[in-house]
């Protein structure tokens, strides 16, 4: 229902045409947020696996399943192609590239990241789909189609493990690159005179923070609504909270590096954007909320061991971080799309205040989020809330043994 409302909001917005990108700011912000959140989360399952940490089993599905929101991201991305000018009409990293820049190549990038996310999810889910195929006697069509004839031979396991490593590596490389490119082509180069080497990095850091935050939120919801308290323990929340805290600090550091350079340099074309529009000036209140949600409160909560080593602490911080990132995306996109000056001008004449969203914007925001949640919920139902084979593997390779007078967990890490 909410998603249908979002489609109605999109139709209303479309009624005002694609010539003027000003009214599309909130739409672009929704895309920016969902593209950050939906495409980032799968990385969380890759990194602990690469480090051979044995606590990641229960969170693998929660992080990878978010990749299905990529379907919505592709749809949301398409109208943006009509909204932003070609590289000839602004200063971009594409210089004077004669054709397809940025629209064609960016579309390929976005599609590639989405396909990579799906492939990563599929390879990870093959053994579980194979089990489903066998248990259903071959009648489960989706499982039969996607698991082929996987029967769990040593070679198949080996290929699956290496496939996951390669696809995961590709995913991280693609994600950082695509996020940087989107931040340049769909945000920064639309504003005359805004040249910041920190902004693409800051944009990507938002993505990494969103990866951990989204995974924690999905994990907490799965744990709560599927009653999986026995399998999803505080271990997963505790370990991932440490990474999230580091990313909260990195978020603040990247903002500070951008802010300090601009503030100290006092170059008007930089200060009007970074200080006047993005951090303080016209939009101070929004920035302060983002700063509190992405840095101050996470630091104050996660710095305490009992809060960090709990389910509630990291979940609250994850929700706060997602709110902060959403507001950050509004700051990134909405004023940028309201700029009416020629992007080739030397500088922006005055900072732009972010207006309250209109009815179509509210419908698009709610509908976009509802659509992503619907897709993720469907995927969790189709594939299951936990990766069974990975749970089994983690249990196989972890034993509690006596060490002197204490009982400690032994983790086997095969070479």
């Amino acid at each position, binding site marked *: 229902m909410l998603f249908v409302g979002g489609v109605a909001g999109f139709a209303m917005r479309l009624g005002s045409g694609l010539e003027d990108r000003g009214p599309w700011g909130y739409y672009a912000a929704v895309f920016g947020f969902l593209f950050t959140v939906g495409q980032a989360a799968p990385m969380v399952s890759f990194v602990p696996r690469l480090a051979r940490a044995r606590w990641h089993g229960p969170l693998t599905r929660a992080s990878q399943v978010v990749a299905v929101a990529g379907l919505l991201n592709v749809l949301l991305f398409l109208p943006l192609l009509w909204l932003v000018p070609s590289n000839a009409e602004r200063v971009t*990293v*594409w*210089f*004077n*590239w*004669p054709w397809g*820049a940025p629209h064609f*190549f960016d579309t*390929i*990038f976005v599609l*590639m990241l989405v*396909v*990579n996310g799906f*492939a990563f999810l599929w*390879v990870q889910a*093959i*053994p579980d789909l*194979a*089990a489903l195929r*066998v*248990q259903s006697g071959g009648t489960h069509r989706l499982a039969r189609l996607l*698991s*082929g*004839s*996987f*029967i*769990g*031979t*040593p*070679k*198949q*396991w*080996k*290929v*699956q*493990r*290496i*496939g996951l490593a*390669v*696809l995961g590596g*590709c995913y991280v*490389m*693609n994600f950082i*690159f695509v996020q940087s*490119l989107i931040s340049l082509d769909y945000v920064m180069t639309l504003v005359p005179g805004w040249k910041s080497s920190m902004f693409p990095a800051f944009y990507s850091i938002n993505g990494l923070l969103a990866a951990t935050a989204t995974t924690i939120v999905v994990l907490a919801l799965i744990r709560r609504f599927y009653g999986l308290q026995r399998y999803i323990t505080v271990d997963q929340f505790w370990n991932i909270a440490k990474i999230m805290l580091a990313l909260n600090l990195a978020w603040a550091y990247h903002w500070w590096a951008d802010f300090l350079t601009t503030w100290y340099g006092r170059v008007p074309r930089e200060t009007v954007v970074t200080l006047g529009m993005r951090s303080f000036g016209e939009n101070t209140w929004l920035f302060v909320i983002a700063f509190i949600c992405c840095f101050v409160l996470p630091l104050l909560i996660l710095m305490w061991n009992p809060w960090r080593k709990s389910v509630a602490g990291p979940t609250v911080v994850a929700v706060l971080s997602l709110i902060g990132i959403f507001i950050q995306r509004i700051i990134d996109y909405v004023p940028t799309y309201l700029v009416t000056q020629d992007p080739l001008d030397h500088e922006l004449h005055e900072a732009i205040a972010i207006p309250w969203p209109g009815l179509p914007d509210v419908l698009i925001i709610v509908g976009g989020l509802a659509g992503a949640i619907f897709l993720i919920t469907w995927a969790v139902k189709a594939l299951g809330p936990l990766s*069974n*084979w990975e749970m*089994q*593997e983690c249990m*196989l*390779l972890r034993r509690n043994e006596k060490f002197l007078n204490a009982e400690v967990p032994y983790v*086997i890490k*095969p070479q």
Partner: protein
Amino acid sequence: MPSVLGLFQSADTAAAAADRLQASGFGPTDYEVLTGAPYPEGAFGEDSGDHRLFIFPLGGAMIGFAVGLMVTAGTQLSYPLVTAGKPILGIPPMFIIMYEGTMLGALIFTIMGVIFESRLPNLTNDLYDSRITEGYVGLVVRCEDDAQADTAQTTLTEAGAEEVKQQGRS
């Protein structure tokens, strides 16, 4: 060729059965272990076999890079129009497109590699039992003749297999 499947409730019994198979003259390549979860390589003394998955992303990346290079350098050198005194080859956009080509090639070929190397789909009808997905361990012995299949069946039964199935006897 006949094949024999022994089903074991625990991994320990299956590992002991694999040892007995080897003692009965079967080599590490003559049998295959079927499990519902990945065990460390060689846990059952089996030969997990070679794979060529690494070649796929590497080959794909090289093809993608070559296509990226052709699209960028090729087009610009084919129509060498000097714009505003800038070099014919613009390195930053070339880098982006070549990177895109490289990653796209690696990605597509990795997916193909997983499908090919895992033999998905496999058209042969191998012996299998649904209990393997519930934690049982299966040992499939590929035999040259019926006599060898009988030996394998006896060995697996004596090793504690809960059930032994045969397929492909003449």
